[in-house]
């Protein structure tokens, strides 16, 4: 499903070379729930964005569903992102001028609306029916993240990449978000979650530890949570 081969990400900051990712190799199978953990600044978000075709690596390959993301043209990469990858962010990143319903619909590429799950059904499943006409500014943090989740789910992606999805939520809302991610996995989807907390571990089929841009050997664990 997803393969990272010796992925490196280096950049210059104030004349010094910073190694965000120092040769990460990783393979994720369809239906896995992978949690990437590690301290702040260890490269978790960089790895996630690189896996999602959002940040070109300095070296190495990222293959999604058999396609080398950074070897294909930008338009095709966009297509992979729009059809197969759903993102969920810590800061929700909802579009402030659109309603909840419109924010969710924005997750579907133009012209492919019929392929998306029913927005009303999805809003109902996530407990947002009564909020469909509201703008993000009037929602609670938990509601905002559920809208972010709905936006990722609406296009029925193959994989959801979630960057600290519960970082701004209380435990109850965090648990609800993970429950929905686990539900997506039960439906055959793949989930990759970046987290520095422990709350994601309960749902993980595998946890990968990252430190200084590298996977920590021997600390990769299969949790064996039932699918």
């Amino acid at each position, binding site marked *: 499903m997803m393969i990272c081969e010796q992925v490196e990400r280096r950049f210059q900051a104030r004349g010094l070379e910073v190694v965000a990712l120092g040769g990460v190799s990783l393979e994720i199978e369809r239906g896995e729930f992978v949690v990437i953990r590690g301290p702040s600044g260890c490269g978790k978000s*960089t790895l996630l964005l690189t896996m*999602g075709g959002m*940040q070109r690596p300095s070296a190495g390959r990222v293959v999604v569903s058999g396609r080398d993301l950074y070897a294909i043209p930008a338009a095709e990469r*966009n297509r992979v*992102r729009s059809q197969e990858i759903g993102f969920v962010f810590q800061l929700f990143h909802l579009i402030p001028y659109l309603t909840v319903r419109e924010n969710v619909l924005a997750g579907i590429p133009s012209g492919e609306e019929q392929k998306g799950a029913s927005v009303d059904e999805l809003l109902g499943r996530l407990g947002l029916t009564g909020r469909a006409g509201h703008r993000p500014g009037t929602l609670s943090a938990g509601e905002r993240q559920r809208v972010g989740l709905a936006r990722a789910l609406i296009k029925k992606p193959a994989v959801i990449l979630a960057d600290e999805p519960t970082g701004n939520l209380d435990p109850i809302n965090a648990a609800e978000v993970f429950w929905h991610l686990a539900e997506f996995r039960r439906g055959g989807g793949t989930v990759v979650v970046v987290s520095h907390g422990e709350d994601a571990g309960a749902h993980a089929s595998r946890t990968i530890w990252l430190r200084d841009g590298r996977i920590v050997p021997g600390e990769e664990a299969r949790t064996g949570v039932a699918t």
Partner: protein
Amino acid sequence: MRILRLIVAELNYHWVNTLMGVLGLAIAVGLLVSVRMTSQASERETRRVMRDMGFNLRIIPKSTDMDHFWANGFSDQTMPGETVKKLAAQRGVFVSFNHLTPTLEGRIELGGRMVWVTGIGETIVSAVDGRQPMGFRIKPGEIFMGWAVAQRMGVKRGGSVELGGKRFQVERVLAEGGTDEDVRVFLALKEAQSVLGQPGRINEIKAIDCLCLTADKDPLAMLRKVIETALPEARVLQLRTLADARAKQRQMAERYARLMVPMVFVVGLVWVGVLGWLNVRERRVEIGLWRAMGHGSGRIAGLFLGKAALTGLVGGLMGYALGTWVALRFGPGIFQVTAKGLVPEAGLWVRVALVAPAFAVLASLIPTMKAMGQDPAEALRAD
């Protein structure tokens, strides 16, 4: 989701940015529209004032004795009356000359004293611009009398005088002008030809030059070149004071427009560009998000350029209304002679509706390119 819906929703949400953009464009367009309308009014006013000042070109027979001409005020030589039609029929004459008026001047005894008689024929104007012929129109049997002549003879409007054995009704007594017009009488050309004993002849074509050249160019040389080709049997004299006043006024109006228009353009470009830049900065995360959802540069460009075009359209039309209102409200007080000529220019709003959005799009190009080139990962990462 339709891009127009996104643009309208964003314009509504970031209403301060929208308002600033629309107002900026409305003021810029309003300035340009009002300047254009008042400039045209100013030109009309100048043309009318200059027309009231009289002709500035005198086309006389080439063989004229210039000593006689300057001593007596008219040429001692004559040309056929059809000469004016011949001149008017020449290709390109109206580029340099307009209001071609055939005249015959001479001196004749009236009430025991010699007066100047001027016979005035039909004025020929360029058929293209549809201007009204300037100067007097005198009907047969009527006479216009200079102020000093009328005073001396004790004649008033409605009275009659005998001239060259023929009686004329005084149709008008001219106001005191302080010029030689005060001691002239004016007749229809045919009757002047009759009383002066020069049937079918003229000795001058009066005209106005249309060149309005700058001081470093010599308009007289150009006029003479035209006459040399069109009417080799004639020569042209230019009343420089009038011609220069006319040219300078027009040049001043052009200089004013040359200063104002680019200034408004540059200020408008910077204003819209800066607002666009701020909008791009404010929407960094949104841009990253559209990228994350698989949208390409086309969507990003469409969002920003579409917004610019819509803002330009609304601001432009508001500016057209504002500029027209300003010109119509304050113009008549400034341009009192031609106040009625101040009317909304037909079709200008269509040009505004096309140009203002294009202008706003141009001003937003750099911010849009910035948005398209932005690294989405930088905007979306939480740490």
